[in-house]
């Protein structure tokens, strides 16, 4: 494979594509609303109408507005017609959508691409999502895929790639927000020898599904990002650690790796250069703690997912003791775009300290649920009230939970905060991987805190005592409060124990487990106090 061949594939695919494409979302969200049957009906209708020469039905990835799925979009390749989006399409609507191409009327509800839900979005990571068939490498190549890998191999030396990423200001999208360029530089600086790249696709936070969508909708993008990372740090082997709960993502990844290997875009001497890179998939087995990097490494090695103390950091001693770069799916998916458009372009997006865009999974009581990708610095109010359409119940938004079990609840009064790493940390929450769960007045915050504690109690790996025993105690104390059996003293003990667990746990799971309790105590203390026994009680 050389550049000419790649461009030939690109041209051939562009010539192959028919002038009208009916995009049918077959990512997990729409699939469970019945989009596979809709797609079959659409194909049958295209045949029945005799439009086969000019029209094709394509499976595409996530179109983001999951709450209104299954979604179907009719796109004209020449751009002579505006794309038409249909929502909540049923099999009965399929024929009418195809007939509408000839001037009929479609029965499915019309979607609106100018809806506030879409209007504020700035897709970089999701730029191909919902537009290309994730199961065909040719479609990814047709939109310019793998060209950045070629450019990197022939136009950059590894240090220049690291420099480009450093200057872009990209920070880790898995939650920690560690500068990606710095991480790459640390691994690159280690003496030459066996090194690894790991893509952390163990998206364990409940309420987050960004990484799943990226893997399902545009898997090649992640592979290209990994290969570029491998070149930059001097690694020849990558692993994708993906949760077993995402069967479709695993299938698409397996297929993508096979296709890339067939075209020699992965393997030995990629593009005729001396660079070798192969990627293997490791499937998790349902342990939240494996999102923590040292636990993840243990799991890739086939052991129990117990974290270990750091240092040494994986950048120095990771997988089988070798220097290892671990990046989240979304971080790696940003890489091809940064190389293509340049670090300066990327650094212009977002805020002073948080560059670029972030994908959020907007869910919960909000009207419009789905995936959004917005520039950093967008305010929570814009996201929840404009894009999400607010909540349906009286009283409006009560709180927004970000960061999953490691994050916190942000009260409605702080909705004007802009979304970036520092602002969210200041509010006692974290950016996290990007789950954003909107809560209304029907939600009991103490119950939410207990829900997260129950989660952490179950997911604690049991290695260190503060986390293993602390989460159990915290859970029991929260239950006692909810049962109206607690007194003022219990609340103080609850708070003290939170700090103890936070300060003394071994890994991120324990250190952040008290966050949901602490943040609800901070903003909704009254709800706790209302559940307490009067001070003149038994004690």
């Amino acid at each position, binding site marked *: 494979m050389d550049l000419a061949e790649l461009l030939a594939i690109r041209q051939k695919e562009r010539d192959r594509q028919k002038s009208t494409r009916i995009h049918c979302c077959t990512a997990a969200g729409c699939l469970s609303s019945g989009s596979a049957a809709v797609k079959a009906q659409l194909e049958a209708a295209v045949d029945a109408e005799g439009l086969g020469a000019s029209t094709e039905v394509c499976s595409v990835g996530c179109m983001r507005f999951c709450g209104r799925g299954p979604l179907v979009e009719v796109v004209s390749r020449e751009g002579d017609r505006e794309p038409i989006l249909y929502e909540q399409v049923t099999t009965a609507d399929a024929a009418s959508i195809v007939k509408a191409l000839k001037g009929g009327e479609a029965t499915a509800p019309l979607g609106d691409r100018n809806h506030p839900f879409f209007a504020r979005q700035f897709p970089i990571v999701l730029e191909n999502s919902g537009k290309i068939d994730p199961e065909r490498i040719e479609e990814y190549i047709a939109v310019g895929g793998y060209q950045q890998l070629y450019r990197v191999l022939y136009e950059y030396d590894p240090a220049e790639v690291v420099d480009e990423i450093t200057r872009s200001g990209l920070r880790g999208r898995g939650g920690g927000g560690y500068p990606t360029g710095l991480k790459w530089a640390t691994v690159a600086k280690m003496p030459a020898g066996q090194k690894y790249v790991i893509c952390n696709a163990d998206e364990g936070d409940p309420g987050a599904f960004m990484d799943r969508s990226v893997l399902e909708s545009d898997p090649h993008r992640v592979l290209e990002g990994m290969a570029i990372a491998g070149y930059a740090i001097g690694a020849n082997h990558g692993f994708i650690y993906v949760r077993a*709960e995402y069967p479709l993502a695993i299938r698409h990844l397996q297929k993508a790796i096979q296709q890339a290997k067939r075209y020699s875009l992965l393997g030995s001497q990629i593009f005729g250069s001396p660079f070798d890179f192969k990627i293997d998939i490791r499937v998790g087995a349902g342990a939240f703690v494996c999102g923590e990097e040292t636990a993840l490494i243990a799991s890739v090695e086939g052991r129990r997912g117990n974290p270990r103390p750091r240092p040494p950091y994986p950048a120095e001693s990771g997988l089988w003791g070798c220097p290892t770069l671990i990046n989240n799916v979304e971080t790696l998916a940003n890489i091809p775009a940064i190389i293509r458009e340049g670090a300066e372009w990327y650094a212009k997006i977002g805020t002073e300290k948080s560059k670029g865009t972030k994908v959020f999974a907007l869910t919960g009581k909000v009207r419009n649920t789905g995936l959004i990708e917005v520039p950093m610095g967008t305010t929570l109010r814009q996201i929840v009230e404009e894009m999400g359409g607010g909540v349906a119940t009286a009283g409006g938004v009560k709180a927004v939970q970000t960061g999953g079990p490691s994050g916190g609840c942000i009260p409605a009064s702080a909705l004007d905060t802009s979304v970036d790493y520092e602002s969210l940390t200041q509010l006692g929450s974290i950016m996290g991987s990007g789950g954003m769960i909107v809560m209304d007045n029907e939600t009991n915050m103490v119950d939410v805190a207990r829900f997260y504690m129950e989660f952490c109690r179950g997911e604690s790996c049991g290695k260190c005592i503060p986390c293993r025993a602390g989460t159990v105690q915290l859970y029991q104390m929260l239950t006692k409060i909810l049962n109206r059996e607690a007194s003022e003293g219990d609340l103080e003990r609850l708070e003290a124990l939170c700090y103890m667990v936070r300060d003394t746990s071994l890994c991120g799971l324990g250190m952040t487990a008290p966050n949901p309790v602490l943040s609800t105590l901070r903003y909704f203390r009254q709800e706790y106090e209302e559940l307490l026994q009067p001070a003149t009680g038994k004690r």
Partner: protein
Amino acid sequence: MSPLSSTPTIDRQPPSAINEHPSGDKRFKVLDITMKRNQYRSDALIEVLHKAQEAFGYLEEDVLYYIARGLKLPLSRVYGVATFYHLFSLKPSGAHSCVVCLGTACYVKGAGELLAALEREMGLKEGETTPDGQVSLVTARCIGACGIAPAAVFDGRVAGKQTPESVLAAIKEWLPDAAS
């Protein structure tokens, strides 16, 4: 010749016989293929356990012994890994499975009510199987279908925007007296 060779030989199996499980159960072949593909490397343990669970439905003791031997790992290590991860089950599950997602998005949208309705109707707690071995009731941390919460999975089929009525209706289809 080494002095050892003169000691009475223990009835060692020839290498080819490793592939034949004494019970004659063909499913062990699947494990052999998986282990071989991974060159019997110990870090393939989780992959092999996945395959075993797929083939056998759960990880019975015999299977764990077999894997430990194949990968040359202490049984304690295999057992330790099998019990650490939630997706591995050491006891058989029902013919059908109903998974209620208890992720945060589903939870605030009423997944607790779905679970309560199912527990009441089937007389089970989560993680249990009906006495006739027909239906297992399971909960999940998050299946990533948050956009269509609350979600449930019936025999691998994800269904969104569920209500207590809809999950009960789905379960009824599996129960033997549903025909009446």
